[in-house]
C-alpha cells in the first residue's frame, strides 16, 4: 500500500464491512471473509483512525503519537497490516480529490 502511495493515496474502511468492538479487539466481517477477523493491540486504534480517509503517513503519525513510537517504525509496522486489510476487502484505497 505504501509503495503505491504518492501522498494523495488515502485509505478508509470499506462500508460493506460488518464490524463490532470489544474492550480489547475489533471484529471485522468483510464480505469475502468466511469468519470474523480480529484486530487487537494497535489494530484497534488503526481501525478507529480509518473511520475517515487518511494517508499512510497520517495514520502513522496518529498511531505514533498515541503510542509514543517512532513514526518511521510505525509506517513499517503498518504496511503489512494495511495490505492484508485491503486484501480481505476491509479497507479500500482511494485518492484525495
Amino acid at each position: 500500500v505504501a509503495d503505491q502511495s504518492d501522498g494523495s493515496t488515502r485509505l478508509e474502511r470499506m462500508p460493506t464491512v460488518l464490524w463490532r468492538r470489544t474492550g480489547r479487539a475489533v471484529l471485522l466481517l468483510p464480505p469475502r471473509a468466511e469468519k470474523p477477523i480480529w484486530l487487537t493491540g494497535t489494530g484497534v486504534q488503526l481501525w478507529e483512525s480509518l473511520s475517515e480517509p487518511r494517508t499512510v503517513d497520517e495514520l502513522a503519525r496518529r498511531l505514533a503519537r498515541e503510542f509514543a513510537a517512532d513514526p518511521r517504525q510505525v509506517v513499517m509496522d503498518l504496511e503489512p497490516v494495511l495490505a492484508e486489510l485491503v486484501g480481505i476487502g476491509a479497507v479500500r484505497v482511494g485518492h484525495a480529490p
Partner: protein
Amino acid sequence: VTPSGSLVRRAAIDALAQGLGLHRDPIPEPLEPTSWQTLLTLARRERLEGMLAQAVHRRWLAATETQAEELDALHADALELCLMLERTLLQVLDALDAAGVRALVLKGSAVAHLDYPDPSLRSFGDVDLLIHPTQLEAGIAVLDDRGYQRRYPEPRPGFDRRFGKAVTMSAAAGFEIDLHRTFALGPFGLTIDLEQLWTQPASYRLAGRPVGALATRHRFIHACYHAALGNAIPRLAALGDIAHLSRSDEVDPLEVLATVRAWRGEAVVARAVSLVGEILEVDVPGLTTWAAGYEPSGVERRALRAYGERASYAAKSYAALRVLPGFRARAAYAAALIMPRRSYLGDRHVGYASRLQRGLSQVRGRQHLL
C-alpha cells in the same frame, strides 16, 4: 437461586442500570472466582456481555486482569455470532428485495444499531423479520428457494397469513430465520393493527446497505410485547431494551398509550413496564405510575394468563378465539387448530383424535389453574 447467585444477579442488573446512566453503587472489589463464573454464565444467558464489559471498562465493576480477559473473550464470542447473523440477515434481505417482498428487522440487529449508543453493547442470537401478511407466503417461498425449510408445516392453507405469529425457517448449514406476521401468538397478537407497523418505518445502515426497522414507538411497544408475553421470565437484556427505548425522545408515553389502547394491548405494556420496575428497579418515564395503577379487565386477565409460566400453545389458541372478529374467522381458526392437515401433525401427535384430546386437556389444565 443461591445467595451468591442472587447477589451476582443484582450486580448484573446494577451494571445494566448504570449503563443507562442511572446511579448505582459501584462494585469496588473483584468478585471471588465462583461468583465471577456465575456472573459470566448469567451474562451469556441474559445477553448482557456488552453491558458488563462496559461496566468493567468504566471501572464501575472491578475485575482482575484475568477476569477482564475472560469477559472480553465472552463478549467477542457473542459479537462473532452477531456478525454472522447480520451477514445472513443481509443475504436474506437481498433475496426478499429481489422478489419484491418488503421486510422490517425486528429486535436483535435493529435494536442494537438504533437504540444503543454502540451496537456492540447489545448481543443477540437470532434473526427476526416482519413481513406484511399479504407477502408472507411470498417471503416463505423466497427462503424456500434458498434452501430453507419450514420447521413446522402450516396447520391449514392461509393460517399463517390470517392468524399466525411467525414462521420459523431453518437451513441445514445456517441460522434460523423467523418471518413474523405479528408480535405475539394468541389474543394479543391478533388485535394489533398490522398496517400501522408499515407506515413510516425507521431505517439504519448495515454494511453500507439501508435496512428497514419498526418506527421507534413501535420498537418500544414490540419490546414490551416480547418481554411481557415471551419467556415466562424475560431476559434481562429484553427488559433493558424497554428501559433504553423509553428514554428516546421519539417515544411519547401518550402516543404509546393511544396506540396500545387501540390494539387492546394496554395490559401487555403495563405488565412489561411493571417487570422493568420490579426486576431492574428502573422507571419507564411517563408509564411507571400508569402501569402501577392499571387494572386489567377480566378479559385481559384471562388473556394474560394464557402467556404465564405454564402457558401452552393450546391455551393461547383458546384465548385467541375470544378476540377474533366474527363467526367465520373463529370457525376457520378453530378448525385449523383442531383439525389441521396431516402434514402439520407430523410425529408430534398421531392423529386428530389425540390432538383434540391433548388440546382440550391443555386448555382444561390451564383453566384449572386460573
